[in-house]
Every structure is written in structure tokens, then in C-alpha cells.
């Protein structure tokens, strides 16, 4: 059955901001699917609130709406565009929920819009846990005993009826297992059920017999309307049932399943997708008894998912592309496998092993609970490919860029055994490293397997690695080196074990001819010739990456998605690749993140799926002999490689390594600013508590404290008390006396940010961004307005002047991101980043300007004058204003601080864009998930220093008819200012949130990070109840303004984006 001719225009729903449980994978799947649709001549209309996505580029879709993903806005887009079809399965849970809502509202029927691919009925059956169970029972697929509970009591009764067995509690209709958990015993069950019922939008939880400890196995299935089914891939979770698949270390294909078990589950998966009526992709999760062939079906995701993205990258099979073609009516066997040019109707055969390791955000949330369970906590992941499990595992371990060094973790190495065992028994982010550490100390593999529930196979493999470490420690011979490399050990790890510099290991290795070869990911294990440029390294004989004489440049990607380094950097990487290709230069990408567009098989001319370390990048450079390496797009990960790569003789394109080094070293940078006469916050280094005291005396309070060592997530802080400074400094120096603590004067004032492009002489100025929150809130967590509405002309002039001076002094060739604070009418520089920043996609989209393309050309040697931007070139102001609003995932991280501060905490962002500022602000905050107007009263509870400021805000809210509640101190201030409010004691305030009386919390903390304080508990309660939690006065004021504007009926119509002008 060829494609349906009646489908000419299709609406694709994106997944919105990056949050825990919903990351960049949907940009990858979505943009791949959009291209597949366009290929068929379909007009693609795209709606997404996330500007940092490739799918919202004009190259990907025909009409783009960056609008809030709410049923109201999407309905208006549908009305305006009148597509024949809607494809909801590309936008994760958000896409599905929206489609379901539009259907319920009758919008789809009224407008004659058909849901393409998997029908909504199938989606319902897959998503609604009760319907799903019934369906499974009908077709005879085993599911664990369970009930649906709407009250905690029902849950307790059920667990008692199972003989007080452990149960797992999972709320209906949430992502990433939000609000779920394992519990045993009356009290624990009650508590978990209560929490789950609260987080579920329909107030229900599924209470289920726990099969924690069983193998967790996933299948990625594709099915067409003729009922042809294929299993693209299966994946085995190294962490057994009980740890969310998103938080598990995963291998593909399964390694401990017999063929019988594998075929049994594959077959069951087929029966399930058949029964549901899926037409497209579907993920099926099973629990398999490690001691028999018994299994249970755990859940299905009848859509593209994080797992399907991983499976795509693991196999080379473009699942999203094929799913999109199926949605258009094609049969599987009519679709071409773009890799082998054969049919897409086959199952990939792998001849390598893939390992995925999640990346958790605990470096930013020291106070958060590091245990992992049925609720996902990781923000991103890395994938590695090797010919064996050990090789792939070690490559993945050196890709995660956490505090680990390969399989070795300095903090765990210092820990006592009991603490390590605790980390093995109770799953946490450090479990893999704890197991390795215990093996090093002689613990028995069987014992570790029993304590962790991890299959002994994987523990034995770790033990082999530990044995190899021992051998490497005592023997520097070439033979040992060869064996170690073949098992996957990195040069850095070998160097650490042998107490010598990495360079020396590298030299010895090269001398002996021990260098990797590259093999192709070809979907067919070498059975057919393949036309794909997707490679991984291994230590074997045959190298398949053929020499290509055309000149090339290597673009370094940004690795796993983490707080502070998100999808924005993949956006820039992909655009850099495009502009290289346009300039006739072969683009070679090195990256290790399976969720991204940059690692799609047809994004670049060559993709090396490799760790982003000096060693691995050097190998690629040796192989490709590029004109140079581009380090400005892959965030800090790429930038950090510049110096060591340059030292190894690799040409770095763009701004010189010397300048990069100055910008990265605060001391050198301040020195440069002093030379140029550019003001910066006064500050200094504290090598002792005494020095800290002196600094505080000199600078005055508050100060910004930056321990160079991140202490349990406590990085940079603004400190208001001298004693606290001393404590922080003492604690930091206790960890590492050699590393001084930076103490700067805190400059309160308006924060501005610019992403300019320089060529050392000319300067291209897209405009100035203004933060809503004053300096002190990290630029990534501030609401940012572009172009800046409230900047005085003199300030703007000074900003440009400073930029130009930095451009000249640093001989910038490429991006120049600078953050400023305007304090007492003086412009200070906070920092400069000589790389593409987080905001590049945001301003590119508002301006409709190809900033990355321009910067790439500059890095390749063009001057801005050549490109048509001579002198200090200012882009004409856009006709619309954009507002970037951060989105947090704090509700998924139990115990994590919610208040804004100088340490970035948001996982993603959305953009509101409109002709006038209030409308853009409204769209921005709605897209970020704030309820506007609030669903209840405003609860005010602010620190003493903010009390005066809160009065006008309260007054405005009151004028808008919003009832005010306030905690005692704040209430007193309000009442004495004549603003009526209901005073509440803290416990009462907490109760009011729990009861749903509060619609917005305004809480400016006195001190953060302390879970025992009432303010902290109020903030947690607010995010857990999904009500806006505003922690600065500026944010609160903006909220009030938007509410007021809403009263005045601002026009809130969706508007399509305009594309960028082609590059001159």
C-alpha cells in the first residue's frame, strides 16, 4: 500500500522543554520524522515551545510555531493551518497528552484532523494502566497483580492482601515515573500512595506486586497497518527491575538471555503491539525472572521514546523515519533502509556491544536524594560502542564526565567498605563505581551480585577489568598495554594506574603501533555493503574508515545532556556541521550522546560515536587529518579539550587557544580586564579562613563565593553572613587545601548578556538580552528578554564598546558571549565565554539569523566584512520580542533546592514570542507550565531583606482579586503597609498548599539549601503540587504584570516563525 494521497499537510507536535524524563531524544526523532515527511512532499507544520531544537528550524518544517504546548494554543494552530493529519507520537508524553486532550475537546473532529499512525484508541490502551491490564489479560500476557487506587487506604489493603509483599506504586499519566516508588510495610505504602495520587493528573495510582530484582528487558517494535512487525532491537538493563530504565545502565543487545528467552519476549511484544493496534513505533518493557522463563509485561510506550532513540543509535536503524512513513500509509517492506539501500523490513544485526550510562544532576543538587528507583532522575545519557561489553562500558564511563575517572571514583576510593556496600545494596547513581571499588578491595563477585541484584555476568566482567587494572599497575609492557586497550582502558586510566603522565602512555602505545581501527555501524553485521558514515573505534585488525581526500573539519559535540549543558549545544553543533558542508568542507562529528540530532546518521559527512576525551579525539584527528577542530560549539566539554589538543599538535579553528585559556581562567581574565580598564567585580582568592575574613572585610557583604571544588552540589553561592563565608571556605579547603576559594563582591543590579560574533576586528552584534532577575541568579535560570526593553542607551553603548575591546584584545574568531551587570549605572563584566552559549538558538530564532553559520565561516577564516557585516554591525531589531523562560525538573528530584541562585538548576527552557512584551511573557510562562491566572490564593513568605519590595507586588495581586496568604513576618509587613492578608503559621501554610488552596507561592529565601527550614519545605511542597514557585521579587513582579496584562485582553494568537535570511 503506497502512501496515502489525501494527506498533504501534517501537524507535528514537539515535546517542549527538556525536563527529566523528556530530553533531546524527541528533537532527534522529531526532526528525523519531519524530514521523512517532507521527502514525501507533505507540508509539515510544527509546533513546539522549545527554541533550542533543530525541529523548529525552517530546514526541517515548512511552517513553524514556537508556541506553548497547551491544548488551547495547539487548537488555534490547527484552526489556522487546517492540516489533514496530526502526528502525536513524536513529541513524547507531551505530544500524546495534547493529542488526547484535543480529541476530548472535540477539536480534531470539528476540524476534520485525522490522527496518523498509531490511533488514539491504541494510545489510550497503552497509557491507561487499567485498560492496559485488561487488554493484557484478554490476550493472555502476564502482568503483575495490581489494583488501581484512588486513596492511600486502598493501596495499603492491597499490599496486605499480598501478604505484606513489596509493592510498586505508579501514578497514571506521568512521565519519568514521577511520584512513583517501591514500598513495603503499611506506613511506607501509605506515604508512597499518597504522593503518587497527588502527582497523577487523574488522581490514581497503580499499586502492583514488586518484581524488583528481575531482569528488565526492553523491545523496540515497529508495526505497519498490514500487521507486519519487526523488533529493531532489544536492550537489557544492567540494573534490574526497580531502577527506572532511564536511570539504568543498559546494554544492547541483551547479553544474558538465551535465544529461547529472547524469542519468547520478542513474540510477546508482537502480540502486545498487535492487540493495541499500534501503527508505528512502540517500546515494550518486560520483567524476566532470572531463574526461570517466567516473565511479566511491565508497560508499553506506543510512541517514539528515549529508548527508541537509543535503539536507533545502537543499531543504525532510523526508527522515527520509518515510523513516519508508516503513518503516511506505507508498508514496512515498501520503505527503504537508508543504510543498506535494501528494505527497512528486517531486523538489524549488531556485531558490537552498546552500553548506555545515564548522567545524573546530583553535582548541582548536593542536597537531593541520590538514590535511584522507579522514578527517573537522570537528565541525559551517554552511549558507547565497543566490540565487547568491557570495551563499551569503559568508553561510556569515560564519556559521562561526572566526578568519575573511568571506572574509578576518587570519592569512593576514600570511602569505607560499609558505605560502599550501602551504595551497592540501595541503587544510587554511584553504584557501578561502588561495585568496582569493592572488587578492587577483594569483595566476591557472587556476593556483590546477590547484594545488588545485578546479573553475575556483569559483575564478573567488572572483575575481569579490575584484574586487568592490577596487571597494568605492576606491568608496563607492550603486551599488557595491548590487552588493556583491547579491554577498553583509556590512556588516562592506564596513566593513573602506572603513576605516569598520559602523554607517556600514548607515546609508548604509538611506538608499538597500538592504535584503534574504526568499524562501521551498518545495521547488518557486515552481511551487506552499507552506505553510512557512522563509525566507532576498537582495537582490532581491519580499519573500515576509508580515506577521503576532500578537506574536512572536526566538530566536537557536547556529550550528555546535563544541567548547564543542554540541547542548545547540540543545536549549535548541527548548524556548524551544516555550514561546513555548505562551505564545501567535509564535516566530521565526534559525540557520544545518543539523544541528539548531531549523532543522526545523515547529519554529518562522518560520525565518530566516541568519548569526548583527548585520547579519543586525537585518534579521530589522526585518522581524518582535518584542517582543524572546532571547539566552540560543544559547550564546555569541547572547549576544555582545546588546550590539550593544541598541545598535541592539533590545529584549533577560530579564536586561539591562548585567548580561550584567558577567558577560562578567572584570574587571567580579570588581569586582562584591568589592562583594558573594564570594570569587573572586585575579588580575590582565599587560601585560608584568615584570608577569607580579610576579603570579606575589604569587599563587604554579601559576597559571591566560588569553591573550585564543588562541595556536595554547593558550587557558587551568594553569602550574606561572614560566618557562613568562613564555614564554606573552611569546608572547601578541607577537601583540597591546594585549591583556593574565589570570593567576589556581589554586585546587585540588572544582568545583561550578549552573544556576539567577532573576527578580531569587526564585530557582529545581534542585540542585548536582559534578565528579569537581578544578577545573582544564574543566566541560565533567569527569564531573559530579547531584545532588551529596559536598557539605557548609554549602557548599551558601553556594552558594545566593551565587546569591541574584548574582541580586539582576545583576537576573537567566532563567538563572544559576555555577561554584564549594571550596578550603580556602571557596566561590569561578569564573565566572557569564547564559545557558542546556551542562548544562541534563542536569539537566532528571534532574529531569524543564522548566527552559527556566520561564526563557523569566521572560524574557517572569512572576515565579517567578507560575509557582509563590516565594522560594528548591528542586526536590525526584530519585529517581535522573545522571552526565554527556564524550566526546572525539581519535582522529580526529592529534596532538591528550588530557589533561584547563582548555580544553574534548570534543565530546559521555552520561548514565548510575540509582537509585544506582555504577550510574549504570557506565552513564555504558560509554555513553562505556570498556571496563569493562579488556581488559588497567593502565598507570600519572603526573607526580611525582601519584605519592603514585596508590598507593591502584593498590592497588585490583591487588586487583581487574588486572595493573599502570608507567613507571620511577611504578614506583619503587609498589614502595616495596609495590604490585607490572612496570616498563617508555617505549618498552616504548608497545609494550605497540600489542600490545594494556594495557586502561587512567592518565597524569597533567607537561606537556601537547608531542608530543615520552613521556607525550603514550602518551596518543595509548591513544586510537588505543580504551582508556580517564585523565589525572587523580580519574578514575582513579572507574574503580577502578566496577570494584569491578561486582564486587558492582550492578543494571544499563535504566529508562525519566519525563517532566516540566507547567508550572504
Amino acid at each position, binding site marked *: 500500500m503506497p502512501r496515502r494521497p489525501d494527506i498533504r499537510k501534517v501537524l507535528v507536535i514537539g515535546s517542549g522543554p527538556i525536563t527529566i524524563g523528556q530530553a533531546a531524544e524527541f528533537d532527534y526523532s522529531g526532526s528525523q520524522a519531519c524530514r521523512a515527511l517532507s521527502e514525501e512532499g507533505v507540508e509539515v507544520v510544527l509546533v513546539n515551545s522549545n527554541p533550542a531544537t533543530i525541529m523548529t528550524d525552517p530546514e526541517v518544517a515548512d511552517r513553524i510555531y514556537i508556541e506553548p504546548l497547551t491544548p488551547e494554543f495547539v487548537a488555534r494552530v490547527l484552526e489556522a493551518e487546517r492540516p489533514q493529519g496530526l502526528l502525536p507520537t513524536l513529541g513524547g508524553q507531551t505530544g500524546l497528552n495534547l493529542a488526547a486532550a484535543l480529541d476530548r475537546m472535540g477539536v480534531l473532529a470539528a476540524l476534520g484532523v485525522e490522527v496518523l499512525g498509531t490511533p488514539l484508541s491504541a494510545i489510550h490502551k497503552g497509557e491507561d494502566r487499567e485498560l492496559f491490564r485488561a487488554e493484557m489479560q484478554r490476550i493472555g500476557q502476564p502482568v503483575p497483580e495490581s489494583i488501581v487506587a484512588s486513596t492511600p487506604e486502598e493501596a495499603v489493603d492491597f499490599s496486605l492482601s499480598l501478604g505484606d509483599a513489596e509493592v510498586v506504586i505508579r501514578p497514571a499519566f506521568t512521565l519519568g515515573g514521577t511520584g512513583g516508588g517501591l514500598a513495603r510495610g503499611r506506613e511506607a505504602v501509605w506515604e508512597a500512595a499518597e504522593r503518587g495520587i497527588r502527582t497523577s493528573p487523574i488522581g490514581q495510582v497503580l499499586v502492583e506486586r514488586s518484581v524488583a530484582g528481575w531482569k528488565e528487558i526492553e523491545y523496540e517494535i515497529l508495526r505497519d497497518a*498490514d500487521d507486519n512487525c519487526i523488533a529493531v532491537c532489544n536492550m537489557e538493563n544492567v540494573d534490574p527491575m526497580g531502577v527506572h530504565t532511564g536511570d539504568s545502565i543498559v546494554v544492547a543487545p541483551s547479553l544474558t538471555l*538465551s535465544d529461547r528467552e*529472547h524469542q519468547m519476549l520478542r513474540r510477546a511484544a508482537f502480540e502486545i503491539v498487535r492487540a493495541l493496534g499500534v501503527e508505528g513505533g512502540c517500546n515494550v518493557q518486560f520483567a524476566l525472572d532470572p531463574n526461570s522463563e517466567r516473565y511479566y509485561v511491565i508497560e508499553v510506550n506506543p510512541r517514539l521514546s528515549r529508548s527508541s532513540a537509543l535503539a536507533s543509535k545502537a543499531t543504525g536503524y532510523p526508527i522515527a523515519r520509518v515510523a513516519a512513513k508508516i503513518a503516511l500509509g506505507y508498508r514496512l517492506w515498501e520503505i527503504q533502509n537508508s543504510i543498506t539501500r535494501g528494505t527497512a523490513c528486517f531486523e538489524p544485526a549488531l*556485531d558490537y556491544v552498546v552500553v548506555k550510562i545515564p548522567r545524573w544532576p546530583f553535582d548541582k543538587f548536593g542536597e537531593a536524594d541520590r538514590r535511584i528507583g522507579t522514578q527517573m532522575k537522570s537528565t541525559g545519557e551517554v552511549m558507547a560502542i565497543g566490540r565487547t561489553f568491557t570495551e563499551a562500558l569503559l568508553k561510556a564511563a569515560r564519556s559521562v564526565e561526572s566526578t568519575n575517572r573511568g571506572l574509578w571514583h576518587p570519592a569512593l576510593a576514600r570511602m569505607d567498605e560499609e558505605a560502599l556496600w550501602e551504595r551497592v545494596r540501595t541503587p544510587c547513581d554511584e553504584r557501578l563505581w561502588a561495585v568496582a571499588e569493592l572488587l578492587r578491595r577483594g569483595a566476591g563477585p557472587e556476593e556483590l551480585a546477590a547484594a545488588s541484584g545485578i546479573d553475575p*555476568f556483569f559483575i564478573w566482567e567488572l572483575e575481569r577489568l579490575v584484574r586487568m587494572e592490577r596487571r597494568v599497575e605492576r606491568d608496563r609492557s607492550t603486551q599488557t598495554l595491548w590487552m588493556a586497550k583491547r579491554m577498553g582502558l583509556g590512556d588516562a586510566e592506564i596513566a593513573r594506574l602506572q603513576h605516569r603522565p598520559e602523554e607517556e602512555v600514548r607515546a609508548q602505545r604509538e611506538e608499538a603501533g597500538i592504535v584503534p581501527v574504526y568499524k562501521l555501524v551498518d545495521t547488518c553485521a557486515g552481511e551487506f555493503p552499507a552506505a553510512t558514515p557512522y563509525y566507532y573505534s576498537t582495537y582490532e585488525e581491519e580499519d573500515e574508515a576509508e580515506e577521503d581526500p576532500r578537506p574536512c573539519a572536526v566538530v566536537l559535540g557536547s556529550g550528555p545532556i546535563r544541567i548547564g549543558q543542554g540541547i542548545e549545544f547540540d543545536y549549535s553543533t548541527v548548524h556548524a556541521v551544516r555550514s561546513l558542508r555548505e562551505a564545501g568542507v567535509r564535516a566530521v562529528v565526534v559525540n557520544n550522546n545518543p539523544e541528539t540530532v548531531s549523532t543522526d546518521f545523515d547529519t554529518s559527512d562522518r560520525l565518530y560515536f566516541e568519548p569526548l576525551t583527548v585520547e579519543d579525539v586525537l585518534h579521530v584527528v589522526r585518522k581524518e587529518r582535518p584542517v582543524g577542530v572546532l571547539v566552540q560549539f560543544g559547550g564546555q566539554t569541547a572547549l576544555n579539550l582545546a588546550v590539550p589538543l593544541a598541545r598535541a599538535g592539533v590545529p584549533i579553528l577560530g579564536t586561539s587557544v591562548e585567548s580561550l585559556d584567558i577567558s577560562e581562567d578567572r584570574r587571567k581574565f580579570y588581569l586582562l580586564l584591568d589592562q583594558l580598564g573594564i570594570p569587573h567585580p572586585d575579588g580575590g582568592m582565599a587560601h585560608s579562613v584568615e584570608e577569607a575574613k580579610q576579603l570579606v572585610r575589604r569587599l563587604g557583604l554579601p559576597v559571591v563565593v566560588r569553591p573550585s571544588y564543588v562541595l556536595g552540589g554547593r558550587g557558587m553561592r551568594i553569602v550574606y553572613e561572614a560566618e557562613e563565608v568562613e564555614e564554606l571556605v573552611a569546608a572547601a579547603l578541607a577537601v583540597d587545601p591546594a585549591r583556593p576559594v574565589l570570593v567576589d563582591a556581589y554586585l546587585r543590579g540588572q544582568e545583561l548578556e550578549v552573544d556576539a560574533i567577532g573576527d578580531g576586528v569587526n564585530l557582529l552584534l545581534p542585540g542585548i538580552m536582559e534578565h528579569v532577575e537581578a544578577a545573582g541568579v544564574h543566566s541560565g535560570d533567569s527569564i531573559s528578554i530579547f531584545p532588551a526593553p529596559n536598557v539605557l542607551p548609554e549602557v548599551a553603548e558601553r556594552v558594545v564598546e566593551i565587546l569591541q575591546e574584548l574582541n580586539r584584545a582576545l583576537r576573537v574568531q567566532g563567538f563572544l558571549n559576555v555577561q554584564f551587570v549594571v550596578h550603580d549605572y556602571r557596566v561590569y563584566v561578569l564573565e566572557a565565554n569564547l564559545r557558542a552559549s546556551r542562548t544562541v538558538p534563542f536569539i537566532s530564532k528571534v532574529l531569524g539569523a543564522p548566527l552559527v553559520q556566520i561564526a563557523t565561516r569566521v572560524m574557517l577564516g572569512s572576515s565579517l566584512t567578507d560575509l557582509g557585516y563590516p565594522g560594528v554591525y548591528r542586526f536590525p531589531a526584530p519585529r517581535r520580542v522573545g522571552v526565554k523562560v527556564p524550566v526546572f525538573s525539581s519535582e522529580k528530584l526529592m529534596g532538591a533546592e528550588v530557589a533561584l541562585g547563582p548555580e544553574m538548576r534548570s534543565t530546559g527552557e521555552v520561548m514565548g514570542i510575540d509582537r509585544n512584551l506582555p504577550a510574549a511573557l504570557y506565552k513564555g510562562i504558560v509554555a513553562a507550565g505556570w498556571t496563569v491566572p493562579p488556581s488559588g490564593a497567593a502565598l507570600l513568605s519572603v526573607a526580611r531583606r525582601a519584605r519592603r519590595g514585596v508590598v507593591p507586588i502584593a498590592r497588585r495581586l490583591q487588586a487583581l482579586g487574588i486572595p493573599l496568604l502570608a507567613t507571620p513576618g511577611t504578614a506583619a509587613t503587609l498589614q502595616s503597609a495596609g495590604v490585607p492578608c490572612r496570616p498563617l503559621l508555617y505549618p498552616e501554610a504548608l497545609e494550605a498548599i497540600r489542600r490545594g488552596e494556594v495557586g502561587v507561592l512567592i518565597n524569597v529565601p533567607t537561606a537556601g539549601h537547608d531542608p530543615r527550614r520552613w521556607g525550603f519545605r514550602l518551596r518543595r511542597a509548591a513544586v510537588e503540587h505543580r504551582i508556580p514557585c517564585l523565589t525572587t521579587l523580580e519574578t514575582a513582579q513579572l507574574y503580577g504584570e502578566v496577570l494584569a496584562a491578561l486582564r486587558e485582553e492582550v492578543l494571544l494568537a499563535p504566529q508562525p516563525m519566519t525563517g532566516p535570511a540566507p547567508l550572504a
Partner: protein
Amino acid sequence: MEARGDLCARREKTRAFSLHPEVYSDTLQCMNMQPGWLALEDGLVVRGISIGAEGISGGEVVFTTGMTGYPEVLTDPSYAGQIVVMSFPMMGTYGVSPQWAESRRPFLRGFVVREASPYTSHWAGRLTLSEYLRGQGIVAIAEVDTRRIVRHLRTHGLRRGVIAAGEWDPDELVARARSLPDLAEEDLVVEVLPEEPILLPGPGARIAVLDCGIKMGIARELAARGCEVIVLPGLVEVEEILALHPHGLVVGNGPGDPRRLDAVAQRLRTLFGRLPIFGVCLGHQILARAAGAKTFKLPFGHRGSNHPVLEHATGRVRITTQNHSYAVDEGSLVGTGFVVTHRNLHDGTVEGIRHQHLPVWSVQFHPEARPGPRDSRDLFDRFLEDVVQRAGVR
């Protein structure tokens, strides 16, 4: 764009990389391992470590791409005469157990893997891969670049080769590979033939299964459907078959060139129309030859668990297990009364045929799976429908 680091100029050395032989042999010594070799007639020699029996063995070198199911591969008699290269690199991870055996013992001549797991982690796994191979006297090697061998065979076609454990002169190994007989000249079926008939009792239809090296999975599938299954040595006379009064006949898989079994084909021809007949793999080729069609050798065969096969009647595709070097020549079916029912979506070769009027049909792939997808087990039901229609027995 001219700037090239001097590092890039130094690349020549690494391009010509192949591991220093001394490093390699030293490494083996470190590991207390015997070297192991695979040498092809065209001169390709790879060295790894021995993980199986001592000695040397020769045969046709083939590769299979299935990622699970090595115990089933090891015991599939169709691999008689062959040295099997596994394209999936990690083998033995779940051990070996009699419950996964497809025949009484392995008949293959050698086994080549990238990494052999030194332990087994599975409730049913009894032996490690290496223990099993040693116990069964199979020469096997590990730690070689199996993907390179696969690509070599794919490009140049299947090759004769020898596999050896211990110290050998590579040139001698190549010479030995060259002196091996062509697989097509070997009577492999004789090697794998059972001595005695086997009876799997059941209340239903009596099905005779002709065993030229079958996987027991075929018999088990029938038995699971209630049939009384009698597995007969493949070279039995027609009279012996008929004497059992079977309600249907299945001609199973087996090794080698179907041309060497034309005697069997001639016998089967006399049964067309007298019994419902179902052929699998080699059985399919024999039936085609019985009908007067021709078979030919594919460049490197189909081996694995992921081959898509289109069924013409329904337009549906099934993912199948395959293990064959020979295929039925489509043109030669003209005038035989047989039509093509199934086709391989990769190379368009014939995957199934059926007689236009008589209940005689066959498939090239393995509906019994083991290893591989169970998508085609319905074919046994279809065959039994033929039996019911014809004989009225269930």
C-alpha cells in the same frame, strides 16, 4: 585551509597498522593460551587463541549473523562440513545447556568468535562455551577480528579454510586449505544421518519426518501439535515410508549440496499426490529438484535470524531464520507445476514454493526457529491443515 598539524603528517605509520606479531604471541603467552588459527584458501590467515579442541580441521568457512542462539547453531546438523564464524562478538555469555541442543551433537568443523565468555551466567547454562567445545572435540578460536572475516567472505564469497590450535606455519595452513575437497563433493548427509528411526508419540496425525540432518525443533513443533512423529533416516526407501502409513511427510533440513541427494528427490517424486508433503530448507531444495527444477549456490548464503521473507498470497512479511548456501532457481520452476509463494526481500531469491494442485509445498527458511524468530510457526499448522483435509485426521 592549508594548516595541517605535524601530527597529521605522522600518520603513515599508523595507517599500515597491523599488530606486531611478537606482541601478539607474547600476549597469548601472558594469557597462558594456545594460539589458534583460521586460514582460508585465498591466503587470508588470522590468528587468535584456541578455545576448543586440539588439532586441525577443515571445511567451508561461513558466517552467521544471529546475535543469540549459539548453542542451537552449534548443534544444527546443517553446519556439517563447515567452519562457522559468529558475527556477534560476545559468545558463550549464557553458557551451553542440553536443553538448547538441536541434535545429538555438533557436526560443524570449527567455530570462530571474537570473545568467548569465560563463565556462564544462566540458570539453565551447564557448561562454558569453551568447556563444551573441548568436550565435543570442536576446534575453535577466539580473539580474532570476526568482522573482518565476515566482510571478506561477503566480498569474495565462501571459502574453504582450516582452523587449527597450536603452533602452525601459516603457509602450510593455507596450503592445507587449498587441498580440501569442495564441500559440494562431500557426502555430508551420511555424516549426520541418524542410525535408527526416532518416535515421538502423540495422539494425532502420524507424520513421517525425513531426516537428512534435521534440527529436532522440526519434530518437536509437530509433536507439540499432538502429532505422532516418526523421524526416519533420510535415505530410506519409499516403501519403508509408506509402510508406516503416515498421514503426512516432512522433509527436513540438512547439510551440503542438494544435487547430491537426487536419489532422495527421485523417491520423493513418487510420493507427490499420495501424501501431503512439507519441505524445509534442504527439504525445500530436494522437493524442487524432485519436481525437475534446478538449484544453485549463492555467493555467501543466508545465515542468521533476521531475513525478511514476503509471502505473495498475503503481502505479509515474516522475519525468518535462515541457514543455507543453495537456492532454488526460479526460472527452472516453469513447467514443474510449482509456483513461488515466498520471496527473500533482500535478494529476491525463492523462499517458498507450492504445487498448483497437489498438497506439496516447502520453504527455504526455518519455521521451527531455534534459534531465531517464531514468526513462522503457523506453517506447521498449515501443513497439518493439509493433512486434515487429505486424511481427515487431527
